[in-house]
Every structure is written in structure tokens, then in C-alpha cells.
């Protein structure tokens, strides 16, 4: 059995979305900026997609821009705002951001001040901490909507409210929530928002950036006039069309069924391993489950699971090629060994109950096998 439980890393495309893309590769392939019928057709397809996606997140089409990825959207937003403000201005981000935001902030720290908000044991940013971190020269706050490793949903509306009151720009990396949770940029008090197609069964290589009307920032990618100069480059029309169709299908999926499967997996694991550490809090995206085993290392577990056809991911250093394990788990107060022993299962609408039952059984087998090799065996 092949069981794909790594949907937070990337997803399979919806077949229907693939079909919708095809004509734009070989039949309606013109540059949407071209002044001829085929160009107009391509442009129309792109603008229809824009309208649909904008409406889905509660924005105007003129506020929705297409980019090459979630990472690109994050870079355009963060660097764009920073460079439009005086050097030495203050930026606030959370300590659990995806590297697309975290690494960008670290680079910006050379010329700007950055505060990294701590998180609770559950991996949540506190609104109070945001309030206390704000200074007179704060120009930008960026906190992710939900964390990719644990699924923890952050109090975005509340943080956005503070930003609004203090007239500070607020960006949220919603790469893990677009297509899964209901998004309303006004309800979230977001000035900017990033999304990525391949996280919601769309194609890789295309993303979105929402930017509220009236916000001006530096353009970090320079070239033609595409996307109002915010992201120049001939638009990826097939990708954009595929993204819109994928969003339409994904947002209509039975999220409660996925939640039930995730909870079933969680309960099975907790039953088999009473002292398991669950890193995913109650208020989490319905598809994510992150747990830590002690005495066994993540990559070894992943490879053993993969042997049995199960695909997941881990926060261990070895599985990422880093020397340090998951910065998210460490920020949550986990010790290194707990972080090294973490596994992340991220479900999708394509998973079945049979797959989850099989996975639970294989996890037990995998942990037993690796434990037998470890000096930290439970049973001596």
C-alpha cells in the first residue's frame, strides 16, 4: 500500500486541475500581454483565475498578484516593505516562521531591527507579546497563519488588529491555510498575504500575494509591467489556471472527514505509545499531526515507514540535512532529542480510513525496529 502523508510538503494535483491547464500549454499559449486574439484569450483565462481567487479570500482582483511561489511572495512582501522604509526600522516576526520569512528577516537584520516573537509550549504566538514588542519605529509585522510543522493556527485577526491600530503593516504567510481554512483578508486584518498552489493540489511554481489597495512598497524584482511591476515576468498562465481550479476543488472538500482521520491516527498512536509527545495543539489545521518519540531518531523512522509505503516527514536534523533539528519544536521548548524524534503526518482528501489504520500499525512496527537498535530501548 502506498500512503502519502506528506501533504504539508506538497500535494498531488487534482486531475481536474491538470486537465484545465493543458490547453494553455499548446493551444492557448500566447503571452497574455500580446496584442492579438490568442494573447487576449490567455489574458482572459488569467483574469478569470484572478477574480476567482481574489473573491475566495475576500479581496479585490486588483489586490491579488501572481508570483512563482509562496517563498517568492514572502520575499516580495518583506523585502518590498523593508526597502521602502528607513534603514534601522523595526520588523516583528514570529520565531516559528517558515525559512522563507525567517531567513529573509535574518538577512534584513543587517540593516533593520528584527524582533523574533517567542511561542508558547503549544507553539502559539501571544497577542500580548506582539503588543509589547511594538515600538515607535515598527514598520512591519509578519506572522504565519498556521505553522507548517505542527499545524498550530496563530491568532492572526488579533495580531492584525494591533497592527491596524498602531498603523503598522501586517503580513501573514498563509501558505498552509489557503485552500484549507476559510480566508477573509479583512476578517484577518491582513495587509498582505502569501499563498502557494502546490499546497492545495495545484501545480508547483505558482503562488499568490495579496496586497491591500493603497499600500506602496519597493519592487524587488525588476523588469516589465506584469502584475503592476510587483512580479514582472511572463505570467505562468497554465499554472495560474491550474491554481484557481485546484482552489475551487480543495476549498469544497470534506474537511471534517480529514480531521476525523487525523484524530484517528493521533488516538491510535497515543494508545500504542502512552508517553508520546504530541506537538500539534488543539487549535490546529485539520490535516496535520506532529508527534515526538524519545530514543528513536526521525530519519530512521521515516525510511522504515517508507519501506512500508508510508510517506511522512520529520523535524530531525538528519532528515533536513541541517545540524540543528526543527527550529519550531525548539522554539516550543522541546529538547533536542524530542525534536530529533519528531514525525509529521499531513493528510489530504485523498487519504482513506484503511490507509490510516495501516499507518498506525506500521508506526508501531517502525518504532519497535528502530528502538531495538537504539541504546534507549524501553524494555531492557
Amino acid at each position, binding site marked *: 500500500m502506498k500512503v502519502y502523508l506528506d501533504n504539508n510538503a506538497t500535494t498531488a494535483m487534482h486531475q481536474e486541475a491538470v486537465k484545465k491547464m493543458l490547453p494553455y500549454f499548446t493551444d492557448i499559449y500566447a503571452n497574455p500581454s500580446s496584442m492579438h486574439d490568442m494573447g487576449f484569450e490567455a489574458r482572459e483565462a488569467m483574469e478569470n483565475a484572478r477574480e476567482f481567487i481574489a473573491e475566495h479570500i475576500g479581496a479585490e482582483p486588483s489586490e491579488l498578484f501572481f508570483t512563482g511561489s509562496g517563498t517568492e511572495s514572502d520575499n516580495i512582501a518583506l523585502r518590498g516593505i523593508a526597502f521602502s522604509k528607513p534603514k534601522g526600522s523595526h520588523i516583528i516576526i514570529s520565531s516559528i516562521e517558515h525559512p522563507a520569512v525567517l531567513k529573509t528577516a535574518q538577512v534584513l537584520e543587517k540593516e533593520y531591527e528584527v524582533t523574533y516573537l517567542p511561542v508558547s509550549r503549544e507553539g502559539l504566538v501571544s497577542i500580548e507579546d506582539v503588543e509589547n514588542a511594538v515600538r515607535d519605529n515598527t514598520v512591519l509585522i509578519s506572522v504565519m497563519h498556521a505553522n507548517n510543522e505542527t499545524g498550530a493556527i496563530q491568532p492572526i485577526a488579533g495580531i492584525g488588529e494591533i497592527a491596524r491600530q498602531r498603523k503598522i503593516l501586517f503580513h501573514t504567510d498563509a501558505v498552509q491555510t489557503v485552500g484549507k481554512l476559510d480566508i477573509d483578508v479583512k476578517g484577518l486584518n491582513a495587509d498582505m498575504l502569501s499563498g502557494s498552489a502546490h499546497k492545495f493540489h495545484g501545480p508547483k511554481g505558482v503562488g499568490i500575494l495579496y496586497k491591500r489597495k493603497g499600500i506602496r512598497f519597493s519592487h524587488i524584482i525588476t523588469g516589465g509591467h506584469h502584475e503592476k511591476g510587483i512580479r514582472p515576468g511572463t505570467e505562468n498562465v497554465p499554472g495560474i489556471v491550474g491554481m484557481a481550479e485546484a482552489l475551487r476543488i480543495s476549498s469544497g472538500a470534506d474537511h471534517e472527514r480529514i480531521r476525523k482521520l487525523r484524530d484517528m491516527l493521533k488516538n491510535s498512536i497515543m494508545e500504542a505509545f502512552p508517553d508520546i509527545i504530541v506537538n500539534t495543539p488543539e487549535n490546529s489545521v485539520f490535516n496535520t499531526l506532529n508527534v515526538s518519540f524519545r*530514543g*528513536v*531518531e*526521525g*530519519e*530512521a523512522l521515516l*525510511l522504515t515507514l517508507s*519501506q512500508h509505503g508510508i510517506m511522512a516527514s520529520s523535524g*530531525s*536534523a*538528519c*532528515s533536513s*540535512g541541517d*545540524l540543528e*533539528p526543527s527550529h519550531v519544536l525548539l522554539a516550543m521548548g522541546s*529538547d*533536542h*532529542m524530542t525534536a*530529533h524524534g519528531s514525525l509529521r503526518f499531513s493528510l489530504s482528501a485523498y487519504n482513506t480510513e484503511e490507509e490510516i489504520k495501516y499507518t498506525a500499525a506500521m508506526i508501531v512496527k517502525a518504532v519497535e525496529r528502530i528502538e*531495538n*537498535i*537504539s*541504546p*534507549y*530501548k524501553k524494555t531492557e
Partner: protein
Amino acid sequence: MYSKEVIDHFRNPRNVGKMENPDGVGRVGNPTCGDEMVIYIRVKNDVIDDVKFETYGCAAAIASSSITTELIKGKSIKEAMQLSNKMVVDKLGGLPQAKVHCSVLAEEGVKAAIEDYRKKIEGI
């Protein structure tokens, strides 16, 4: 990413387990780093008669320690002391750059076990 030798030693590690009354034990690495190895040796007439290992770590770590036990079993203490991490990497058909440190840890584990054995017989 991994050679077939690494995959083989990861899936079917040789000489896994604790040893009853080992003549030497080498414990190296630490779980904070994500890698820890324990090498147990039994020595008879200056020859490594038996060897066992326990490893907390990734596939490369498990494979490195497993193949290392095969490399030193039946060898004299003197020969075993010649073990280098390069030999481990070669026997494994290569390791990704990021995993070479696992082979270094295996070499250190063997040397630590032998050091422990020497200390015991010299009564230190």
C-alpha cells in the same frame, strides 16, 4: 541519496544488541546532536572475538556502526586501532557529505571501546 550498502546495513544491521560482560565499551556522540553509538567488544588473545553495537541516529549512523562491527570482528586490537572513517565510508560505497560525520563517530566508538578495554586490563 544512500548507496545500496547503506540501505542494506540500515535494513539488516549486523551485530545489534548489548553484550553480557563486555571487555570494552565505547559510548560516543550524544542524543542532542541526534547521533549516539555504543560499541561493545569481547577480546580473546588480543583479538576482537565478538562485537555488538547500539545506535541512536539516522540510517547513515546505523549503517556506519553496523559495517564497522564487521570491519573489526576477528581483527587484532592493533589492526582494529588502524580503523579510519575513510575505510567505513569506502566499505559503505560512499556517504553523502552531510553524513560523513557518522563514519567518524563509528571510528571514535571503536577506539573508545579499545581504550576502555586497555584501561580495564591495565587496572587503571
